[in-house]
């Protein structure tokens, strides 16, 4: 059985591609056979974050249109043997995606014994986002502690409950996981930013992970290495915990508290 995970959010720029890359890499590190697919047709980016942008020959649309086989289009990760990337088309528009084509690719991945397919959704709620979530078994909804992101993610939660194959077939619900990213414990402590509890209460869902704002996320995307592989970084460790929780393990949340300030910093600010 192949489990399909959509990484979605509604709002752009919240960390969907960073999350897709890290979750796929983390699941592959755990020995699972994983494919990660970029659904953002016309604005390909997952290849850059995964560091395979110069090895893209065929893309997702080529496979859907029958111009290349799935095998030709899957790019094997250089770090992990059981991890594959399917890039989005950079030249077509989103109308080149269709439901039958996406279903066929997902079925082919199942035939090839993939354990997980991670679907990196584009922002918005239009065709690409709809097709990225339509076949999902799990959804990771990436949300930032910020008003527009929280509101948009509630809209996405509504769509997951109604506009997916599982919802339409009455085949159980898509399992929803809330992932809070770009979290800044110091600002939360100062009352300047929504807390984990605030976001959980507003959306009525508990978080599967909290990714702290971290300089290492930018460094990782600069280098084309998913941040989960930077195991010294707080963000990398937070993603490792998140992957473990998705696999059903219990891990306490970390990186939620502001670092304690010394007496001098407390007096003079810092």
């Amino acid at each position, binding site marked *: 059985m192949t489990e399909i995970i959509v990484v979605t959010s509604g709002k752009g720029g919240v960390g969907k591609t960073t999350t897709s890359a890290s979750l796929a890499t983390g699941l592959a590190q755990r020995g699972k056979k994983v494919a990660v697919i970029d659904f953002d047709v016309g604005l390909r980016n997952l290849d850059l974050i995964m560091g395979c942008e110069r090895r893209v020959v065929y893309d997702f649309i080529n496979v859907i249109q029958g111009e290349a086989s799935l095998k030709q289009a899957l790019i094997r990760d250089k770090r992990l043997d059981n991890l594959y990337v399917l890039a989005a088309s950079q030249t077509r528009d989103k109308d080149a995606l269709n439901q039958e084509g996406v279903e066929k690719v997902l079925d082919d991945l199942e035939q090839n014994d993939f354990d997980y397919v991670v679907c990196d959704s584009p922002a918005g709620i239009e065709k690409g986002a709809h097709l990225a979530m339509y076949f999902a078994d799990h959804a990771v909804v990436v949300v930032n502690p*910020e*008003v527009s992101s*929280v*509101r948009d993610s*509630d*809209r996405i939660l*509504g769509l997951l409950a*109604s506009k997916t194959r599982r919802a339409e077939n009455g085949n159980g619900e898509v399992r929803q996981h809330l992932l809070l990213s770009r979290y800044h414990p110091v600002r*939360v402590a*100062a*009352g*300047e*930013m*929504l*807390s984990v509890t*605030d976001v959980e209460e*507003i*959306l009525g869902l508990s978080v599967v992970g909290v990714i702290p704002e971290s300089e290492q996320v930018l460094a990782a995307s600069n280098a084309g290495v998913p941040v989960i592989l930077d195991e010294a970084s707080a963000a990398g460790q937070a993603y490792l915990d998140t992957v473990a929780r998705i696999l059903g393990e219990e891990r306490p949340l970390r990186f939620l508290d502001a670092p304690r300030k010394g007496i001098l*910093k*407390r*007096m*003079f*600010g*810092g």
Partner: protein
Amino acid sequence: MGILDFLRNKPAPSANIARERLRIIVAQERSTRGGPDYLPLLRSELLEVIRKYVHVEPDAVNVSLESDSGHDVLELSVALPESERGHG
């Protein structure tokens, strides 16, 4: 609070404002979710009619559709301002 904090231009704590605004808008959007597409338009037209007679705030009209064992109930509530009470 550091001694020098008042010299700096630090943002005032605003997370509680964000929380309250989100609670209201999320509840409102959830109440019309899955309902017919005409609900938001119905709400704004009702608001216009009511405003001909009473001055109410834009968020004073609440329209929701509840499904209850086989039949749907369209629920409409209007919060009147303090001064209008008792005038009919």
